């Protein structure tokens, strides 16, 4: 009896130790991974700041703008016109200096770039230079949040639809490869080399310009319908063409890639074995094909989700869709550095977090992978 308890105790102790070991390993791995991720983000964001600021050249453009604006405002004031030329000049200089100070232009670029970096990393995205949100705010965070909805709607609809239909169709095609539809998909897959805006232009041409059944662009009609049901239908009508353009541009290559991927896995010996055992197609698919390919599918899905974030710059521009992509393009056109940096930072964060989480998801779905486990292969 006593020996038995002792034995149980040793076993549980050993288990505890092993568990502790795993915990320590996971913690160490997580820590290491986080540090590399954070460094990666810092470098990525800093590079973006450098590029977005053109190494300080944007400042020159802004200074010119400030001088112009200040001079214009002052000239329209009667009190200013009554001053002597000397006083006018000094007042003008004073105002320009104030404005520069307000925008933080009086510090050297290097210092400002690090301040930008710190603000950016702490998600203190600051105020835009020129752009405003629809509510009139200059908070970069508000501008980005406001455009996030439309982007999510457009990208979410098209990309999720794309992901699920392509995986589903690919599974179907891989079961009967060589069939007519299989060959059609193979033949059509090169069409995906054209970007979505390319199909967008054709769709606009056909459905908006010639047939006149769908709108050219935008997200709602002007003026927007009062009734919320009608509003939703109106948005849906505007959504069809851009979503279809994004969908069509990628669907064939996507099906083709998944199909090939599944085919490679379904020619493995253990699948043949399962077939020989007389399992049904459905069982083979779920247990022997989908199971080992799950990590890849999850990665692809996660990357799809990240892709939603940047939006589609050109497609949104072509369809005048008020999303993040178009905002980014407008921001670049207006030299609005805070907005550019802001959206890049958010993108970088999301990407890093996803990659980080993926490691753990892998460990959950794939018994071959252990978080931080095993020795590295020499």
């Amino acid at each position, binding site marked *: 009896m006593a020996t038995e308890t002792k034995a149980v105790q040793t076993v549980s102790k050993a288990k505890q130790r092993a568990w502790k070991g795993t915990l320590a390993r996971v913690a160490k791995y997580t820590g290491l991974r986080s540090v590399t991720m954070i460094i990666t983000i810092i470098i*990525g*964001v800093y590079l973006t700041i450098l*590029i*977005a600021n053109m190494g300080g050249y944007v400042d020159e453009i802004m200074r010119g703008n400030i001088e112009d604006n200040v001079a214009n405002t002052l000239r329209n004031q009667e009190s200013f016109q009554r001053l002597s030329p000397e006083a006018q000049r000094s007042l003008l200089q004073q105002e320009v200096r104030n404005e520069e100070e307000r925008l933080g232009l009086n510090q050297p670029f290097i210092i400002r770039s690090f301040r930008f970096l710190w603000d950016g990393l702490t998600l203190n995205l600051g105020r835009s230079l020129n752009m405003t949100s629809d509510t009139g705010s200059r908070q970069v965070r508000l501008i980005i949040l406001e455009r996030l909805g439309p982007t999510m709607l457009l990208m979410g609809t098209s990309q999720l639809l794309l992901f699920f239909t392509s995986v589903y169709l690919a599974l179907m095609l891989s079961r009967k490869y060589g069939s007519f539809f299989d060959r059609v998909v193979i033949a059509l897959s090169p069409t995906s*080399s054209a970007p979505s805006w390319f199909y967008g232009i054709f769709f606009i041409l056909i459905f908006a310009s010639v047939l006149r059944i769908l709108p050219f662009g935008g997200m709602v009609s002007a003026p927007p319908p009062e009734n919320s049901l009608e509003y939703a239908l109106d948005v849906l009508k505007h959504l069809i063409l851009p979503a279809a353009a994004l969908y069509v541009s990628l669907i064939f290559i996507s099906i083709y890639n998944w199909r*090939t991927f599944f085919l490679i896995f379904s020619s493995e010996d253990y699948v043949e074995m399962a077939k020989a055992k007389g399992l049904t197609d459905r069982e083979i698919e779920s247990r022997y094909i989908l199971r080992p390919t799950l990590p890849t599918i999850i990665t692809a899905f996660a990357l799809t989700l990240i892709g939603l974030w940047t939006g589609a*710059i050109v497609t949104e521009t072509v369809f005048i869709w008020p999303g993040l992509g178009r905002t980014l*393009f407008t921001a670049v056109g207006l*030299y609005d550095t805070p907005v*550019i940096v802001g959206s890049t930072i958010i993108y970088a964060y999301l990407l890093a977090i996803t990659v980080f989480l993926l490691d753990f998801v892998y460990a959950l779905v794939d018994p071959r992978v252990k978080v931080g486990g095993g020795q590295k292969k020499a």
Partner: protein
Amino acid sequence: MNALRSTFSEIKRYPSALAGLVIIILLVIAAVVILIALPYNEAVRLWRGGEGVWYKNPKTAPPAWTNFFTAADRPVTLHLTVEDEAVEKFREENETTVDIFTTFTFDFNYDEIPQEISLFMEGIYDEKEPFADIYLLRPDGSEERLLSEGIPASRTVYLSQETDLQRRIARNTGFEDVLVGMLSIPDTDPPQIMKGTYQISVEGIGFEPDSDMNVEMVMYGKVHGIAGTDHLRRDLSVALMWGIPIALAFGLIASLGTTVLTMIISAVGVWYGGWVDELIQRITEVNLVLPFLSILVMVGTFYSKSIWVILGVTVLLSIFGGAIKTYRANFMQIKESMYIEAAQAYGANDFRIIFLYLIPRIIPLLIPGLVSSIPTFVFLEATLALLGLGDPVLPTWGKVINDAYQNGALYNGMYYWIVQPAVLLMITGLAFAMLGFSLDRIFNPRLRGL
């Protein structure tokens, strides 16, 4: 050599690859011919020339071949100068004056009114400018006085813009539009075009013994040339043709540069291992965090729109892409091969091993990727042009699409303007994509037979 031949015989088994290859060869030949026939400076001069070069062309006219698809036969552009047979000029010196008669004879058998009829006149005189009466003789014999005025050193008459003429035509024919009045049977509703031979005669009188007058007539058609014209009267065929070498050059250089550099970098990383490999991996991760297109847009807006700068940045950003990991995995396997060990044993240096032993092994894997990535870059150029970041000097397909889009071609039914460059882009992209796909299936043993 043998490998090449066997690859080619494999390609022959894939009809789409063969089609792609044929199109690519045709495109390359076309590019070479165009580069020789229309050198760079000439193409840029034409494309940037503006009204001075293109004054004889109509604005936004669809290509002439569209006439096949429309019920109505739309007029083409007619440009008549003294050198043409249809133009007669005679000059006779009298005692105190000089008669200068120029007659333009042309057939008009179209179903629509042209965009405009213009007369480019040049009076030659010392002090007193010559005077001209201009008449139109219709096929039915009726005559219409178009203008009577003194001709200065340079005078361009756009007939539809002349208000006096407009009033007179309206009174005589009942049509408000000058050109409709000139070319239609009077008082028909809807206006019915009077087909037949027309004559415009410019009857000038010079008041100095040396006086002379040169007249050119341009009837701007509703269709023009093989490719049509844009809003600046430019012949689109210039841009469509020059788009071929540019698209090929951009696509090839970008994809070749990217693949080759990626391959070398990953080979170096794998061979040396340690911190070199680590550094390359970290750079790749940083690069993945950067949004590719946004950075290109930033570079285009802030720095330079030159196609070569954009090309350089594209290659730079693409080198450390996802492909580096694939190559790395391949090199890792090859690195363990016996022959590498043998090479080390007989004292081959690192350079030799990387370039002569490692890299050649993955070239078969690399070729399909290289070919398939060409369309991506061809379309990337068009994408940037569509965002207004096209090269400011060169005529490219993307810039034509951008011009068309900016000028509302989609909204105003000027489809030819967008469809032609788009179809060319599509053909080029598809050709490379089809070839690349088949090469992938030929070279990639895992895909063989799938």
